């Protein structure tokens, strides 16, 4: 699949933002005073920047509001509603906390909605039978793991962050391996795609078009797959190992910020791979 910058920014930033806000909602992080205001600003900033980036992926962004309509059947629609509900609830929570009022029930509700939003984003991908690598419960699991890990890093909980970074690294590694296996085991072949299997072995002879098309650009993306192993190693180092290294030096706000930046950059790289490595069954018609 085409690794669109808008979707990479969307899933990385809003995932981290909702993870951070969920942590604050649960009362696990400074939510009062200037420090609290700063963290709230960061959480809402990340979530909203991500959501804004997602509209850049739309052909007709001016109609984005219509995406709220079909929540009964569409995960994209559910995600829109959940994001709105999470942001609304957490705004109330932030207002109460910054006014020094107790707000834990509101915060817990907001945290749950924030995590459901991340899960709904992942379900947009996981629901697609056409992309065997995504079509699995591990897709929402990995998205949630990244959101929670980013939340821990951003709130500056050193040891939990170190543990979660290592755990997410392991989970991501396993997800890559099982994804490879799923992609290789896909029952959709050139033979089933053309129905010509009973006659013999099928080999592409002539494509339907000599140039690119929406289909080949969007779903038959191949560039970069041959570097996948190197990029995976780089992503593991950047997203998890480097932040762990930085967090191991004595606690300092700069170290936390640096670790968070590394983790987010690494997460963006894992998202690039998430799209670039995903094979759509349509490619069977072309290759």
């Amino acid at each position, binding site marked *: *699949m085409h690794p669109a910058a808008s979707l990479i920014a969307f899933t990385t930033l809003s995932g981290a933002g909702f993870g951070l806000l969920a942590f604050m909602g649960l009362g696990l992080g400074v939510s009062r005073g200037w420090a609290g205001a700063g963290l709230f600003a960061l959480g809402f900033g990340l979530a909203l920047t991500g959501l804004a980036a997602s509209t850049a*992926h*739309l*052909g*007709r*962004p001016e*109609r*984005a509001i*219509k*995406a*709220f*309509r*079909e929540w*009964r*059947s*569409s*995960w*994209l*629609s559910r995600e*829109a509603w959940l994001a709105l509900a999470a942001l609304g609830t957490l705004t109330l929570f932030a207002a109460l906390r910054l006014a020094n009022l107790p707000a834990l029930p509101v915060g817990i509700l907001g945290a749950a909605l924030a995590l459901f939003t991340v899960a709904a984003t992942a379900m*947009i991908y996981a*629901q*697609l*039978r*056409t*992309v065997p690598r995504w079509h699995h419960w591990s897709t929402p699991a990995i998205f949630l793991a990244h959101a929670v890990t980013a939340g821990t890093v951003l709130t500056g909980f050193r040891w939990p962050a170190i543990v979660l970074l290592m755990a997410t690294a392991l989970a991501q590694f396993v997800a890559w391996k099982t994804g490879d296996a799923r992609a290789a085991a896909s*029952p*959709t072949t*050139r033979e*089933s*795609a*053309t*129905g*010509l299997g*009973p*006659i*013999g*072995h*099928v*080999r*592409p*002879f*002539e*494509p*339907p*078009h000599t*140039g*690119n*098309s*929406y*289909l080949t650009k*969007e*779903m038959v993306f191949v560039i970069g797959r041959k570097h996948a192993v190197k990029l995976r190693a780089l992503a593991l180092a950047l997203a998890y190992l480097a932040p762990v290294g930085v967090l191991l030096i004595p606690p300092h706000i700069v170290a936390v910020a640096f670790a968070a930046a590394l983790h987010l950059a690494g997460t963006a790289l894992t998202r690039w791979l998430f799209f670039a490595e995903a094979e*759509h*069954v*349509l490619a069977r*018609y*072309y290759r």
Partner: protein
Amino acid sequence: MTDLPQATGKRLGLVIDLDTCVGCHACVIACKAWNTEEGQSPLADMDAHGAHPSGAFLNRVHSYEVTPHDGTAPRIVHVPKSCLHCTDAPCVTVCPTGASWKRAEDGIVLVNEAECIGCGLCAWACPYGAREQDPAQKVMKKCTLCVDRIDNPALPEIDRIPACVRTCPTGARHFGDLGDPDSAVSRLVAERGGMALMPEQDTGPVNRYLPPRDKETELDILAPLLTPVTEGPKGFLGWLDRALEKLG
């Protein structure tokens, strides 16, 4: 509402004969021309005369080389591909706006372009690559089975079929109700062992493809009928033929 209808009255669709198709792409052009010049859903081209032309098409013809398992000579098979108007259309249920829908009366899968936000999720959900975003209008386009022809009383009866079917010079494309077991298309599918593409994707496609016939046995049967006619014309016609020949 992007829920799928429980059952559709008719199940309109295409039956495409892979034995007859010669891969001329006439259906592709007829489709593009009808929708762009006559129909309600123009299909844009970008950089049409430049170095990187591309554009939206609702029908594309792939060609394959098929090598039989017994090692006999490979053959070329052309596979025209357009929306298969799936019974369990995944493209419809993923749509967040309700722009994608399946008509309850005949099962045709359509896009209400005014409602489409161009998110592209339906194109991701379709295993066949039957949906393309228009590069100019940025909304989703797909085969409509020419609803603006088949429903159009202003057209002569003979034209009230999809443009691709009307155009195909070899008669490889058939249109009809695949939900009615007695329709011409259903009988054709039963007779020729019509198949579904990617059945493992569980989309329940309505369109069917007729597999290429076994050429070897076929030729043995037809060969005697195809012996060249050697007799020249006789009588008056023979005289006329010779006279015209002399005139040069």
